[in-house]
């Protein structure tokens, strides 16, 4: 009797996992996202949310990040800025005017002052209970569930952000990014650059795009590049195929025309996803940042380009 029970329990336990199944299932969600980021494949596209799901909750709010987690988004892009008293908070603009019920520059306000504000929704209405979150609060929410891509940190706040990640144990779950050269970033931030995940951005007027990439690869071996291109005849666009051959993730951001030569989210809705997202994937995108999460996720799932 007990032998049988033992046998059944044994069977059940192993049938759950199967033999030789992907071990990623035993680890966290962020581990498998990072694995895919490091090892891009043609048949799986990573989805990056621009400022959280701002169609569902105020941009850069905890609720907008939670929504991304719920939808199964891989990476959420968040903007952080430094308050007067040295705290990093999520805020896109330099001022709090557009997105909160207050007025003034983030850099002129203390965290306490900012916490008194309430966020507005995307039609500018006050009345949300949501507050401006700190980077620390974001990392506690995101930890092990979704990777975070930090924007607006490259100037002065890499060190401050790094400190928060150290304290929250999330250094390996955050992607920093910036437009400056590898040499400049190393000079400014030294060894921190070797510990953090750093994604160089190739913007359209990057001088000598291929040299920019080569130098980064030599000094910092980035696992991903954000590449924008206003046309398909640009140096930047040519880098996509190069990065594909090197097995380095390419992130495209079809938020507006000049970033992906017109192959935008808007075009996906108006002319069909194949004309926009499909085109980007065909041309080498491994990750796509979007303002249309539902539509992109549905499209990729329909094409069998999502693992889950």
């Amino acid at each position, binding site marked *: 009797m007990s032998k049988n029970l033992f046998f059944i329990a044994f069977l059940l336990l192993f049938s*759950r996992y199967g033999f030789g199944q992907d071990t990623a299932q035993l680890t966290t969600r962020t581990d498998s996202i990072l694995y895919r980021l490091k090892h891009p494949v043609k048949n799986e596209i990573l989805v990056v949310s621009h400022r959280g799901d701002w169609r569902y909750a105020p941009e850069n709010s905890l609720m907008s990040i939670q929504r991304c987690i719920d939808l199964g988004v891989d990476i959420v892009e968040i903007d952080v800025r430094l308050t007067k008293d040295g705290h990093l908070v999520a805020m896109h603009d330099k001022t709090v005017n557009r997105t909160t019920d207050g007025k003034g520059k983030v850099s002129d306000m203390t965290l306490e002052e900012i916490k008194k504000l309430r966020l507005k929704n995307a039609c500018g209405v006050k009345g949300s209970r949501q507050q401006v979150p700190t980077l620390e609060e974001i990392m506690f929410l995101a930890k092990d569930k979704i990777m975070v891509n930090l924007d607006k940190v490259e100037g002065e706040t890499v060190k401050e952000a790094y400190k928060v990640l150290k304290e929250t144990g999330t250094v390996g779950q955050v992607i920093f990014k910036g437009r400056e050269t590898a040499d400049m970033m190393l000079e400014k931030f030294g060894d921190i650059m070797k510990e953090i995940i750093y994604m160089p951005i190739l913007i359209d007027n990057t001088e000598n795009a291929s040299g920019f990439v080569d130098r980064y690869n030599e000094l910092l071996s980035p696992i991903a590049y954000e590449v924008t291109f206003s046309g398909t005849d640009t140096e930047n666009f040519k880098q996509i195929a190069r990065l594909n051959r090197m097995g380095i993730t390419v992130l495209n951001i079809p*938020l507006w025309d000049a970033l992906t030569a017109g192959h935008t989210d808007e075009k996906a809705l108006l002319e069909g996803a194949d004309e926009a997202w499909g085109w980007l994937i065909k041309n080498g995108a491994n990750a796509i940042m979007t303002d249309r999460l539902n539509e992109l996720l549905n499209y990729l799932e329909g094409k069998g380009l999502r693992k889950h």
Partner: protein
Amino acid sequence: MKKRLVSVFVLIFILVNCKNNKENHNTTQEKTVPVNEESRSYTQIHEIRDNLLHPDNGQVIVVAHRGDWRNAPENSLPAIQSCIDMGVDMVEIDVRETRDGHLVLMHDGTIDRTTTGKGKVSEWSLDRLKTLRLRDGLGVPTPNRIPTLEEALNLCKGKIMVNLDKSYDIFDKCFEVAQRTGTLDQVIIKGARTNEEVREQFGKYLDKVMFMPMVRLSDPKAEEIINGYMKNDIPVAFEFTVPSDTIALIKRFGEIRSQGAGIWINSLWPQHNGGHDDEKAYADPHVYEWFTDNHINIIQTDRPAILLKYLRSRGYHH
């Protein structure tokens, strides 16, 4: 010994299962909530009108605030189209007059927040406004243009009811456009005025187009204003603002509704509904029970997808 081993295995198995189930549950559940998912059942316009004119028939009318601004710029044609596709009953849009006397959709007095231009609507001509682009919820320009009221009503014609906000001072102009586009029976004009005031100013229109008085229930005169309408011109509905859910007048909703006037409350933000608002309902749709429990039959929302889903599950909506 063996028994203990078995129980250890069983325990591990249960724990692992629980964890996985929880994860699976989360993903599958959330993936079934894309924005327009509930969009497949359309209510015919005559049914919507019927529900509006017979507020006691048990159906609840869903009004989308500024169109579906989550998926298109607020007060844009695609924002209205998205409401139609979703099965929303009525779209609330804001009307303003240009310098040269045309009516366009615009919430703010200025065009700064929602377009690529700057300045007051009343200082711009329609031609020049038409060169601008509408911005999305992040402030990023989109290909969409500012629609005229005429374009909006032509799109709505035969498909969705329309509530015109900021329309009272331009009542006659709104009436004229509705008449010209053949949408008079789909349009509701509204204003925070007493029955005497409306009769005096726009009385000649009251039997031609639906007018909805707006009443703040915390106003000491609220009851007097309501009674004034109920005595003379029972309106299609009252739009009530309910800052606190303990206001005694709430108890009269059922009676007002049974006499033929609908009860319209905004779920938009807490000050409208004593804290039974859309943001709370996002976490727990049962928040909308406060509306149905209190005989409210018209709800203006910023979350039409969630509200429709809830009402349909309760038999309050087709």
